[in-house]
């Protein structure tokens, strides 16, 4: 970080200023003129928090996607189906066993297993044919979506997470001070904060895994040059299988986490696939930091769009993608 500040001093100052203004906006009491310009403080701060927590969810979903691409150059367009399947499996398990955590764990391992099987049985035979692999994932996603519709029908399912994760909490942020002098604090759902916390934990865990373990070192080397890695004696198929397992498992895990917040129904697979695509295009394929930045941008854009311009808010995220592509086609943190 110090090096970043040294080399890009101008940008560093801008970022510090922006963060300071943001903190001021969040914690101070808003004067009248500000409210008439932007709207109520409650709307702004809650939308901001929603954007950040949604970014956490997008990070969980898209990090698996970018890992698989970074190392294996395989654009897994069945990623959304894995998300949805993980959610359904987690739902069934948590309903029958009564434990939400068990459902969460089962989703992770079940989808991770499916990822490993896919890699060993299908993709291994198509190495270097990236287009063909992508087409296979499209076919799998079509079939999976239809079969899931057949098994679980079009009904929407709701999870029942433990009570201490649910309900609303009071944040130490002032919403408004009424004329009587009474201070109203903001209320915010606990679960969304949990999603953010989980995303941060997973992000740190991924970073540690990639940067402080031996396998992580192999993966990073493989992202740079796959053939050299295999030439140096590493069992590259094992590394591929591990990466696909983690990537797919993360998708299933995110399925339960996201499904608890926003319920599961057919169509969620396409939605999260598109979201992952945009996050990863904006952030840069193959980079976990890029996914973090991309999901923050997209999450905030989506929520601010919904709150302030609901009519065209949906298109805003795509506009960001087009702008990034025009200026920096490899994404913000991507390498050519």
């Amino acid at each position, binding site marked *: 970080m110090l090096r970043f500040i040294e080399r890009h001093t101008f940008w560093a100052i801008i970022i510090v200023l922006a963060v300071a203004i943001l903190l001021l906006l969040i914690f101070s009491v808003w004067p009248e003129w500000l409210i008439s310009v932007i709207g109520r403080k409650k709307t702004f701060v809650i939308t901001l928090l929603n954007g950040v927590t949604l970014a956490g969810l997008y990070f969980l979903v898209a990090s698996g996607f970018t890992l698989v691409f970074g190392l294996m150059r395989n654009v897994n*367009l069945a990623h959304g189906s894995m998300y949805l399947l993980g959610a359904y499996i987690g739902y069934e398990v948590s309903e029958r066993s009564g434990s939400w955590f068990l459902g969460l764990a089962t989703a992770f391992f079940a989808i991770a297993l499916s990822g490993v099987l896919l890699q060993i049985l299908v993709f291994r035979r198509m190495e270097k044919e990236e*287009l063909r692999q992508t*087409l296979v994932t499209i076919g799998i996603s079509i*079939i999976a979506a239809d079969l899931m519709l057949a098994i679980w029908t079009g009904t929407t399912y709701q999870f029942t997470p433990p009570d201490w994760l649910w309900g609303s909490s009071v944040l130490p942020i002032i919403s408004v001070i009424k004329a009587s002098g009474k201070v109203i604090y903001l209320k915010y759902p606990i679960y969304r904060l949990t999603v953010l916390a989980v995303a941060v934990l997973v992000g740190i865990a991924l970073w540690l895994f990639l940067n402080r373990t031996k396998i992580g070192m192999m993966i990073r080397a493989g992202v740079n040059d796959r053939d050299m890695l295999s030439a140096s004696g590493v069992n590259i198929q094992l590394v591929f299988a591990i990466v696909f397992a983690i990537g797919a498992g993360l998708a299933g895990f995110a399925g339960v986490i996201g499904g608890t917040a926003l319920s599961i129904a057919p169509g969620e697979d396409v939605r999260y696939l598109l979201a992952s*695509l945009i996050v990863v*295009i904006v952030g840069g394929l193959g980079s976990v930091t890029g996914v973090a930045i991309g999901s923050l941008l997209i999450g905030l854009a989506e929520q601010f769009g919904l709150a302030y311009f609901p009519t*065209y808010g949906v298109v805003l995220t795509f506009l960001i993608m*087009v702008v990034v592509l*025009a200026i920096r086609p490899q994404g913000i943190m991507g390498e050519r």
Partner: protein
Amino acid sequence: MFDTRRLFSGNVSISEIHPAKIILAVFLIAYPSFTSDFFTFQIGAYSLILGTIALSLMMLAGYGGMVSLAQMSAAGFSGYIMAIFGENSVAVMGFGWPWWLTIITAILCGALFSTIVGAISVRTEGIYTIMITLAIAAAFFYFVRQNYHIFNGFTGFAGIEPPKLFGINWRDPVPFYYLTLFLAAFFLWAVSHCSRSTFGLGLQAIRDNPRRMRALGYHVSWHRITAYFFSGLIAGTAGVLLVWFNGRISPGSIGVEVVIDILVIAVVGGIRSPTGPFLGAIVFVLLENFAIDLIDRERFNTVIGLVFLLVVLFSPDGLLGLWNRIYPKIRFRRSVRTNGGRTQWDDSVSSG
């Protein structure tokens, strides 16, 4: 396909055209005479329209190595332009321009859309192109669904009809079928011809090795964008036909599922050859219409997905590639039989 130079030099004879092609042509032209209106219109004309859109995708993917999922969006955009500048029954937009002007505008708008998509995605390659064009197609879908002033949002437009020319109502099954057949055949010929032209060969060379072409002095990006333009013309024309076929257009016509369907059609049919997309379209349309009678209609998507998956896994050149591999074996066996034991490797296998 026959060589046009020799065609115009007067040296070609009927016997040089592969007999299967003549039979197919006769079958297609005589088709309405022995089938019901439903088959002519909903199966025949619809397959030809879908096949044409898939042809525009095949041209970019097979010859250019760029799988653009936004061709269906280009076709949809041209359909919307027909509704906006022509006449529609929803009382939104509908400027009532003369029919020839609306058609030309619509086709050019489709081409423009495709060119813009090309300009955005030209710096990407291979799988990146799929992702970016899919996102663009989704963006266009969402925009069109939310905007009521121009595109009439969720409801879309209805009441779009072809003009009545020469006393014929072109919306009737038989004339419409011949219209789509003529245009499909024209584009088929155009794409095949183009693939052997300097432009087409350059495009295929760029697909195989862009760096070398750049070193040779070709402007790779412009070449690709021009390819997008031509394929946009094809998609735009198909879009006009599609909006006449349905008589309406709405966001559902250009949703993500439909966009993927076009990819499925092109790949299943065979992405290396211009006749592939039409083959895929016929299979798709027949399955869609008759799956409810033969299998469970509800699992239509599973069936189509399975067919797609099997084709990609075992015959990446599609059904046409499968045929090309089986066909020599059949001819081989036949030659063996007729020549009384002496094997003869018959080399005049058509390349499809």
